[in-house]
């Protein structure tokens, strides 16, 4: 077991974790933050994407023990409060950017950092940035529209 202190969505957690515990399972089972979804469990689908020290990463490809002293953001920390969604969440809702919603948390966390780094993206850049997140429902069209809309709103 390893003692870790990790900051998730601004809250500091002190926990004992098993050596082999994946970050994705730690978030879901230990911290009960089940918004981070687990799809392929080997780094391909992108559903488990979280923000680690400011960069989107696959939480299924990291151990919880590696997060000691680091900062993590998950989809639970995205909205300002219950009534005010993050502009990306609002745009996904407005554009029907999700159907089953399984891939959505990973897409939101990937796009959050993407829009911070690329506030005025063209469509090709958005599609490239989305390439690491699989969505089997939407065909991506509405997701791309949502990211465009969110970018526009966030620039204002």
């Amino acid at each position: 077991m390893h003692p870790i202190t990790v900051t998730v969505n601004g809250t500091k957690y002190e926990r004992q974790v098993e050596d082999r515990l994946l970050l994705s399972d730690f978030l879901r089972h230990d911290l009960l933050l089940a918004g981070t979804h687990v799809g392929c469990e080997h780094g391909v689908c992108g559903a488990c994407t979280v923000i680690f020290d400011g960069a989107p990463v696959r939480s299924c490809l990291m151990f919880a023990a590696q997060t000691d002293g680091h900062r993590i953001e998950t989809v639970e920390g995205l909205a300002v409060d219950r009534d005010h969604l993050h502009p990306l969440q609002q745009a996904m809702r407005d554009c029907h950017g999700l159907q089953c919603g399984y891939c959505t948390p990973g897409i939101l966390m990937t796009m959050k950092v993407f829009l911070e780094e690329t506030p005025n993206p063209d469509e090709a850049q958005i599609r490239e940035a989305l390439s690491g997140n699989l969505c089997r429902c939407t065909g991506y069209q509405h997701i791309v529209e949502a990211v465009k809309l969110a970018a526009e709103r966030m620039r204002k």
Partner: protein
Amino acid sequence: MNFRLTQPAILIDINPLNELAGVNNGAGERLRVGALTRYRNLERDPATAQHLPLIAEALPHIAHPQIRNRGTIGGNLAHADPASEMPAIVLTLGGRLRAQSAKGERWIDAADFFVGALTTALEPDEMLMEVELPKAPPRSGACFMEMSRRRGDFAIIGVACTVRLDDHGRCAEARIGLCNAGDGPVFATQAARSLAGRAIGKNEIAEAAKLVQSEIDPGGSIHASKEFQRHLAGVLTMRALTKAGERARGSA
């Protein structure tokens, strides 16, 4: 590890070893990349863009941003996946790798480092510390191309090449490497040699591409037969050599 390909009894997290991360762009003709340097750091590193154009061109093909944020150069090279881009590139550039153990350190040429699929010359008690790569010389051009089913997938075939011209605009040296074309990264010795001292023209390039096709040994998969991989290797070699030649002529 997620695939249980390896089930280590002991696992040591080397991520806190900050001194292993980063690009050392000294005054010499070579550039050193620490084993813990992440793909994302290379993508944003001006020295890499300037001196290692082959790597800069290949980086966007390597998996996805979320993977490139964590994946390290050393981890990739020590893993030695035959379909991976970096081993083929390091081999093409003629890099060398520094391994260290409690007994001391040694430099291993890329040509000796990659032994086979997921197998390197590293001893069980050794650790990969850094890779040293030659900076692109004057009058040279590089090109990396690959074909994959989807962006970020492993390449069906990838080709890395560099061309250096002499004062008369002829090929002084060409180097050609391929990924997913055999048990490990493949260096197409004969094809590269066939270009030396000649113009980089259509016929010479077509000849080199034919030699590449005879030098590789692709495994085939459900995504592409061996025959298709071989065909693709020829086509991409022609395109990449043509591009590298153009770039060499355009460079000072």
